């Protein structure tokens, strides 16, 4: 795509000082352009800096070297356009589901207006939680909580949605269900999504491009375009393109096709 990227990482490096004073290089010279409406997945072994990359985009950590631009502006200015879904749902247990979803609105303008409440209800309806707005988080299952957390990230109508292993804590079945749920949301709302995951099949199933990272220091090893037709379904996983993509990603992570230790969705 030729349009200006909505998100641009320009030679970003990140170092953390560990307890013993030595320097941990979490990211090394990472450059990546993401265009509007694109679904990008980031995969890589544990500790390769995936979360670090998202935290930098979200502005949660100060950046060591390089620059991040959001919609052409320096990251710090474009941050209101970014929503985040964490690995854990992190809903506040003293608020109802609807109030949790409306929390960002309350922070921004004090009292939610009727239109905001309606928007929250519409979002909850969309993810199948219409009946649960008045419940408290602890009355919902893990998958339902995570869906509510997605609604909370969407209520501000961000251009970019960052997701850090959002389904990592769910069982395999719920996880698959949530993937298709997310694809539906993405197709309905056309957000730009950056999605971090440990699961190669999950990354391929969801995204337009998969960014493969290598650890210590975290570098981009490969960027794999996914040529699967949309909308995607369970059948997509039997497509030849699915196989080709997963094999290529495995090779760049393990150096071979990794049939011995193939992770499952």
């Amino acid at each position, binding site marked *: 795509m030729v349009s200006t990227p909505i998100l641009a990482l320009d030679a970003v490096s990140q170092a953390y000082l560990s307890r013993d004073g030595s320097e941990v290089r979490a990211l090394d010279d990472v450059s990546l352009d993401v265009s509007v409406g694109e679904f990008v997945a980031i995969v890589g072994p544990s500790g390769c800096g995936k979360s670090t990359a998202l935290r930098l985009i979200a502005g949660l950590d100060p950046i060591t070297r390089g620059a991040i631009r959001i919609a052409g502006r320096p990251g710090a200015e474009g941050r209101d356009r*970014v929503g*985040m879904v*964490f690995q854990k749902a992190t809903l506040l247990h*003293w608020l109802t589901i609807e109030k949790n979803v409306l*929390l*960002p609105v*309350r*922070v*921004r303008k004090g009292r939610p207006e009727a239109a905001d409440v309606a928007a929250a209800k519409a979002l909850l309806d969309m993810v199948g939680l219409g009946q649960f707005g008045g419940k408290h988080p602890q009355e919902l299952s893990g998958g339902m909580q995570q869906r509510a957390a997605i609604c909370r990230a969407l209520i501000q109508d961000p251009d970019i949605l960052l997701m850090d292993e959002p389904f990592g804590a769910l069982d395999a079945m719920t996880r698959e269900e949530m993937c298709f749920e997310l694809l539906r949301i993405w197709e309905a709302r056309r957000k730009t999504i950056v999605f971090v995951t440990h699961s190669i099949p999950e990354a391929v199933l969801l995204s337009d491009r998969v960014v493969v990272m290598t650890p210590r220091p975290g570098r981009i090893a490969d960027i794999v375009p996914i040529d699967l037709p949309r909308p995607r379904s369970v059948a997509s996983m039997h497509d030849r393109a699915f196989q080709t993509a997963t094999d290529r990603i495995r090779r760049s992570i393990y150096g071979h096709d990794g049939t011995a230790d193939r992770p499952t969705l």
Partner: protein
Amino acid sequence: MDTMERLIAQPSSLGRFWRTAQGILIPVCSLGSLLLLWEGAVHLFGIRPFLLPAPSRILQELVATGPHLPGNIAATLLTVVLGFGTSVLIAIPLAVAIASSPVVARAVYPLLLITQSTPMIAIAPILVVIMGTGQLSRTTVAFLIAFFPLLISTVTGLLATPREVVDLSRMMRTSFFQDLWMIRLPGAVPFIFAGLKVAISLSVIGAVVSEFVTANAGLGYLITQSTAFFNVPLAFGAVVLLSATGVVLFGLVVLTERVFFPWSVENDRIRRD
């Protein structure tokens, strides 16, 4: 059917009734038999009242003192409530300051530790010299004893905010007060109430200690006065009233939590299950 199945199969309303009955019956029975044992032992061994009065004798003495009791209870209550109230008003804002600023934490902690390691009973007479023999010095003693545990548990609660929730708060660009009011304080409520429960009991202790040193009314005063005249039954009576006061005040704190912060109690229950 094994026991487990039978328990589950039992109609739940009957089960609940039985459990409530047990919850009341068992304590009443154990307390009742203890009192009977006490009463019986005193009569059986002919123990004299100024050594160990029988429960009936204590009751008799309380009834005889009847008209003077409300005034004394009120005096103690006043000290407890003032001391407890002051400790809440000072401990919670101070806890917020400590939890939000490492500088404040470093400046305040040594001071707190020193005052806390000093036995309040030792300070009470000195306070009377400084502050006079009035309500002020009594309130101060009750406050000083109740304050520290409340402060510590509130600070702990404020710092217990999970890292992801802190990130969430920063993603939403909360101001300091929004973060405090919407996220950290509600999250700390179970900790704050744990502190309040300790503080209310300690306020009662503080009030009695202060009355031992300086007072002309109150249940603590009643104890020193009656023991001075070897009226041990009345002293025991005052102790009973003090325990009752303590239990009622504690119950009020528990009730406040249940009524205004039901999720705090619920969440405790879920965590325990």
